[in-house]
């Protein structure tokens, strides 16, 4: 039981349950399964993005360009859809993933080949990708009446009573869970974050792994680009402006250490869910949405203060089970 309570995710899940409980005392319908499903659906895009950011942060890097990538890719698929409504949605999603992958690979190559710190690279590409969106679209918007009904309807279609958007989020969560806990790449990502020097001596190609990690976050940005545009049915240069910091905030609340090496898929998902619940609950309990920023800011600070003790310990045992056996 004591070992169980050591997991950050348990505490975060408890905090979320308490939060939902508190909200439902003022507004009972909030805890209704139908509404909670809605909250999950509303938070899906943030969750997906937070997972992509998580793998980058775990390797002691950061990707500030995710929201700009989302904006650019979203514009590409929206314009494609407006010009050629015949392109099927699965193909559009593949295009979105590919465009995102290219943008992520640019970040990754600069970090890998030129050894420029990721914060500098992605600070640069943050402005470049958003500017490129303007050049691509000529400053014009693509709005709902130019998009095909399939483009807008795809993620809203219900499957087993749950919208496709939520299913995509569940699929991405499952994929990341497998990646981080069952693959060599996942181990390498953690290892690099815990101790880059030791990773080199154990035969991990740190530069190449970082490149792969940026490719992953790029693809996630691209996927989120399609999802965002088809959900809010408007593509413009302003889409998700400043959202990169919300994504990082979700990671931080989820207990992912910005110094690398510490964090889990469950943490990132719960961190995003926490922010999602706050933004969904505020209008319901009659608090002005202007409070949202201050509340999430306080939550971030509180989360780091609570996490601080865990982060002070140097390194982290990755192979807990093996150690217990020997």
């Amino acid at each position, binding site marked *: 039981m004591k070992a169980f309570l050591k997991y950050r995710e348990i505490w975060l899940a408890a905090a979320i349950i308490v939060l939902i409980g508190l909200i439902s005392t003022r507004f009972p319908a909030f805890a209704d399964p139908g509404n909670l499903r809605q909250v999950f659906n509303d938070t899906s895009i943030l969750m997906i993005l937070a997972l992509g950011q998580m793998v980058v942060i775990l390797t002691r890097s950061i990707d500030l360009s995710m929201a700009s990538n989302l904006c650019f890719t979203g514009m590409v698929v929206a314009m494609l859809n407006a010009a050629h409504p015949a392109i099927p949605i699965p193909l559009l999603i593949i295009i979105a993933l590919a465009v995102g992958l290219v943008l992520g690979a640019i970040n990754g190559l600069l970090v890998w080949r030129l050894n420029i710190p990721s914060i500098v690279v992605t600070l640069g590409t*943050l402005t470049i990708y958003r500017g490129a969106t*303007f050049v691509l679209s000529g400053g014009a918007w693509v709005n709902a009446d130019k998009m095909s009904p399939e483009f807008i309807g795809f993620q809203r279609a219900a499957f087993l009573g749950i919208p496709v958007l939520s299913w995509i989020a569940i699929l991405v969560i499952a994929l990341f869970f497998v990646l981080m806990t069952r693959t060599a790449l996942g181990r390498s990502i953690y290892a690099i974050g815990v101790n880059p020097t030791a990773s080199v001596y154990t035969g991990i190609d740190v530069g190449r792994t970082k490149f792969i990690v940026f490719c992953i976050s790029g693809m996630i940005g691209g996927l989120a680009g399609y999802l965002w545009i088809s959900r809010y049915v408007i593509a413009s240069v302003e889409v998700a402006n400043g959202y990169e910091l919300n994504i990082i905030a979700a990671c931080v609340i989820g207990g992912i250490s910005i110094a690398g090496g510490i964090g889990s898929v469950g943490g990132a998902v719960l961190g995003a869910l926490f922010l999602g619940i706050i933004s969904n609950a505020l209008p319901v309990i009659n608090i002005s949405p*202007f409070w949202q920023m201050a509340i999430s800011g306080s939550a971030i600070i509180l989360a780091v203060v609570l996490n601080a003790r865990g982060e002070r310990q140097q390194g982290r045992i990755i192979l807990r089970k093996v150690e217990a056996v020997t």
Partner: protein
Amino acid sequence: MTDVPAPRHIPDRLDKPLSSAIFSWEALLVVVAVAIFAINSFASPYFLDPYSLSDLTFNFTEKGLIAFAMALLIISGEIDLSVAAIIALASTMMGMAVQAGAGTPVLVLIGIVVGLGCGAFNGLLVTRLGLPSIVVTIGTMSLFRGIAFIILGDQAYKGYPESFAFFGQGYVWWVVSFELVLFLIAAVVYWFLLHRTSFGRRVFAIGNNPIAAQFSGVRVGRIKFILFCLTGLMSGIASVLITSRLGSTRPSIAQGYELEVITMVVLGGVSILGGAGSIVGVVLAAFIMGLVTFGLGLLNVPGIVMSIFIGLLLIIVIALPIVWRRLRGGR
């Protein structure tokens, strides 16, 4: 071994041969600045007009003032993402004071004190609790701007006194604006502080190796706290200038400035990993960014496209020396 930089040498005037100055980062920036200046003056006939050149300075003075303090902070290995939010909060407080009938001196004082207070809050969280500054300031960024949003909602504060307009719109001598004078004074003060005092050497020492600095008697926590106070203070001063220039306060004021300030600092040759950098570089980077945005503005290039150039400039200027070294077969 990408992530483990070799221990850097603490810069010293005495061990630098003259030739190294010619190939220094600052020299590269001067070349870039002159090139952009030349391109600008060919591209637009309106560029080489004293009044238009003086307008140019408003593009970088406010951000540059913060960039000086940010440079010191980044050299010490920390970062402050909340500077723009501090501007918003300080401006909101000034707006509230105006509604209560405060005069210009009180407004300036409020701006500076609120900025300093916010900086001290960041500093306390980082140094007392030992938290990573990038996360703390992402938090306080939302918190400070959030408070501004709670107070202001979707309205704006106006009605600033006429004497208050001097700070952001006034000229000291012919076409030399008050902001530019302040920028130059701050440049000299920060240059002296960083490059000619023991405080500055300690800042470098902390950035190079905080543990070694601690053991050699540098009070790491206290110096970092002072540095956070300085960025807060400079943000407060910038808040006075911006509020005065715009003549109104909105909660979305100075949105996105934090990234521009950091871009300026990094472009100025300050290592984002800490331990290296110079104020001259930051001054040059401020000029370059001002020249780029102003020149493109004269050519009617939209702001969002200018940001492409700033982003490209950042990556290319940082990548250039690395590519150059590779081509020469160095390490």
